[in-house]
């Protein structure tokens, strides 16, 4: 059995670097980032965040092969910041959005807890059909194909 461990798709090896920066020699203010052991979850989010920044001329990402767990992100800026700085700013902006949303979710969940909606659900699968008083497993009617 020579199948690689599945966790090698998302856990960095010992000493492996998560980010590689390749500065572009032909295009000014451009760089390619190879982000290892990450996928569309991070790539697409960063790409669209970068595109929202005014100093970005180009941002795009691709996963070159579905079996190889990395993506590359190309960034070109207008020169006011370096691509690395731009990527860092995009990451920080997303972190800010996440912590903002976390606080809002916390408030919303707390509000719902006070309302008593959580935990008092009639049934874990929502309301039972009106003609059923107990769960399907407690009822005496047997399954039609059960001849035993």
């Amino acid at each position, binding site marked *: 059995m020579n199948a690689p461990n599945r966790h090698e798709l998302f856990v960095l090896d010992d000493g492996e670097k998560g980010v590689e920066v390749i500065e572009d020699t032909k295009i000014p203010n451009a760089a390619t980032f190879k982000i290892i052991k990450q996928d569309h979850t991070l790539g697409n989010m960063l790409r*669209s965040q970068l595109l929202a920044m005014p100093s970005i001329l180009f941002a795009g990402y691709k996963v070159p092969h579905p079996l190889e767990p990395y993506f590359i992100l190309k960034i070109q800026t207008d020169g006011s910041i370096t691509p690395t700085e731009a990527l860092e700013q995009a990451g920080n902006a997303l972190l800010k959005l996440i912590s903002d949303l976390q606080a809002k979710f916390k408030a919303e969940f707390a509000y719902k807890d006070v309302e008593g909606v959580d935990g008092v659900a009639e049934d874990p699968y929502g309301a039972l059909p009106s003609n059923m008083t107990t769960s399907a497993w407690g009822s005496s009617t047997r399954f039609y194909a059960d001849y035993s």
Partner: protein
Amino acid sequence: MPGEATVRIRELKKDRVNFVLENVDLAGGTSFANSLRRVVMADVPTVAIDMVEIESNTTVLPDEFIAHRLGMIPLISTSCDEGIRYPRECNCTSHCQYCSVELQLNITCTDDTTIDVTSNHLDVYTGEQTDAGDDGDEPSKRGEGFGMPVGKNDPSVPPVLLCKIRKGQELKLKCIARKGIAKEHAKWSPCSAVAFEYDPHNKLRHTSHWFEQDERAEWPLSENAIEEDAPREDEPFDFLAKPERFYMTVETVGSLKPRDVIFKGFEELQTKLANLIHGLKSTTEIETNGRMTGHVVPIAQTGWGQGPTTMNGTGGGGGWESPGAAGWSV
């Protein structure tokens, strides 16, 4: 500054949460919401049965069949972060109390009636383990019922049927449950379904509806359509419009509460971004200083929340016009 992002929970049940994300603008709203969807489905760790030692199986089902069914059973996974190690992070030989939960099942049918062997027959076994990994306090941090099949002592939750056995048949086995994420195997996913929708009226024309005669009649509107105004008959197409409301339902399998799934999902996103920023910082330091500056700070201490950027610009302006300071905000 554009409007603030808001969250509105429309429904909260034991096993699901339905919410609306509004004004997640940043022009990246769609991809951010999609990343949240992806992360709750595939990156939130839970425990699930990963290895089964079958001692005796005289049922009609083959061992593999039963082992597969056992793997699919949702197990209570609250406090997964501190309560259990990943098997790859534990230095025991195969499994121990720090990186696994053992469950046992032992059913023999002696009656004339068939017995339904269900997930309720699984019991968490806590015994001495010889070849354990490095000492830790993981087991003491586990929540109540950690590793137990979901809804075991709750009569309102129907158990998972594993097999039916008749007189004289027996099923005796030992299961090792481990921590993992759904990228490794879907059984570790805390979600059974994640619904995701935006633009219920298709005003943005991100999709095109195929129809025979009447688009409106053949494409019923979703429940979320009442949240937004329907387009007027003569309304011109606004090609600059961006999606700004995202309707999501996160339905869990019961191993984690919907609340925990959402927060854990956010944490995973933060970890991904923090690792990226950390990686960028360390590569820049190598470039500017020509050597590693021993910057091995644990991620938790890097303070990426609002960390100032202490970098020298490495790339100069190459004849490109600069439109002043970057005035973008979140």
